[in-house]
């Protein structure tokens, strides 16, 4: 798909319209309901556990450079460091990308500043480990085992290294919460973590944690957008099931991919 054709442009326009419409109506003050996402409530529990035990938290923002999943991970990081800073609990953030590292450092510094404890911010807690996937994993294993981490939070895009992080965390007895848009890694988080945030619950996290109207509105808009996709799929199934239709108009089934 090099360029949009008309059906794709129309579909995306509808999705974009729904999301933006809901964002702006939420900003005007409409109350919105969001269902409970247990894994996200567990984040606070994980911070509390680390505080009680007086041991640090490890937060891994995934191994992608700065892109959408990483940005979302950094939003969650902000939430985590703010609470942790309040209780004086260390959050160690190993990163896999220079740019992500700098933003993580800024977020962390900010969180301590806004809690009025700038002196407690330790720049050594935000670490750039490596751009190499498995060098990063080996470094995280080192942190998990040596720093006696009480809670391990993994949010962002992960690949094969997901299980290395999660099993090591389990072996050192850390409480673990993970969330990722990388569907292939979810089974491994489920088997090794206490709570796993599945699929687009990951993108719902910042709305859920911050209760910011813009984000809540966006989340509701996403629901509408998903409903549109469901309708499209159902229509397609109907068309495919009518032999006469797809015999005479076969292009109906390849409307979107036609160039």
């Amino acid at each position, binding site marked *: 798909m090099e360029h*949009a054709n008309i059906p794709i442009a129309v579909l995306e326009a509808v999705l974009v319209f729904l999301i933006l419409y809901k964002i702006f109506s939420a900003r005007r003050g409409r109350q919105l*309901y969001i*269902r409970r996402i247990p894994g996200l409530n567990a984040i606070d529990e994980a911070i509390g556990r680390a505080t009680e035990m007086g041991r640090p938290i490890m937060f891994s923002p995934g191994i992608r450079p700065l892109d959408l999943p990483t940005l979302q991970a950094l939003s969650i990081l902000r939430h985590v460091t703010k609470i942790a800073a309040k209780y004086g609990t260390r959050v160690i953030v190993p990163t896999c990308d220079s740019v992500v590292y*700098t933003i993580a450092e800024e977020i962390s510094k900010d969180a301590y500043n806004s809690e009025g404890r700038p002196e407690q911010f330790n720049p050594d807690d935000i670490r750039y480990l490596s751009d190499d996937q498995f060098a990063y994993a080996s*470094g995280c294993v080192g942190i998990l085992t040596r720093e006696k981490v009480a809670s391990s939070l993994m949010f962002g895009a992960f690949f094969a290294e997901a299980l290395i992080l999660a099993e090591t965390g389990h072996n050192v007895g850390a409480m673990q919460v993970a969330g990722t848009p990388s569907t292939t890694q979810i*089974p491994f988080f489920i088997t090794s973590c206490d709570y796993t945030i599945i699929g687009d*619950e990951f993108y719902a996290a910042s709305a859920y944690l911050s209760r910011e109207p813009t984000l809540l509105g966006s989340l509701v808009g996403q629901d509408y957008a998903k409903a549109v996709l469901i309708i499209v*799929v159902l229509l397609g199934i109907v068309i495919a099931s009518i032999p006469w239709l797809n015999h005479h108009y076969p292009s109906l089934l390849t409307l*979107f991919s036609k160039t």
Partner: protein
Amino acid sequence: MHIVYAWLSEHARQFVSNPTEAFALWLAVGATLGIYSILYKENAVYRLVEHIYIGAAAGYYSYIGWAQTLKPLWWDRITSGEWPWIFALIGGSMFYFIYSQRHVWISRVIFGALLGLVSGAAFKGFAGLNVDRIEASFKPLWGVPWPNIVSNALAMLILLTVMIYFFFSFEHKTRLHRAPANLGRWFLMFAFGAMFGSTVMARMSLLIGRVWFLLHDWLGVAH
């Protein structure tokens, strides 16, 4: 005893005949065993190998960054007269304002540009990823042999219930609401189990490769 002696003398012979290869072999063996030692417990050898690995990877990426990106894409262009590429250096230097207390916002400009590019590409990304998936979901429920109908109907049911599970903005209050979402969750778990099972083979293949390296290249017991 005899076997160990023969093995040692074989390796000693290799060190004499081809020192570079022999050194490379022992370096790789050391790294392999050092990493595996974490399986028993965290220890000094693992720590050492971990640090060497991270250091070497950083050095390697720095070199590759110059040799494969900056030199061909940037330096060679400037030196062949495409002077506007100088602005790439200026843009790149803006990242470093992150270390300045007063001018940290300048780094925001370049972050903003990168984020803009990432988000602008999302429209294309969405289409590229989803068009085929949407059309692959158009599976007929009529006019095909019955096993296919069963299979297609199941696929449709799974797709719908899974998507319903991910609706956030309505309460799963009544049983009528809850049932599809719960069903969707069950299907999800089944799929996750299948994903887990199908990954095992790939990971085992990697392990076999490493074990073969130790047994064949180093110990010489497997042929």
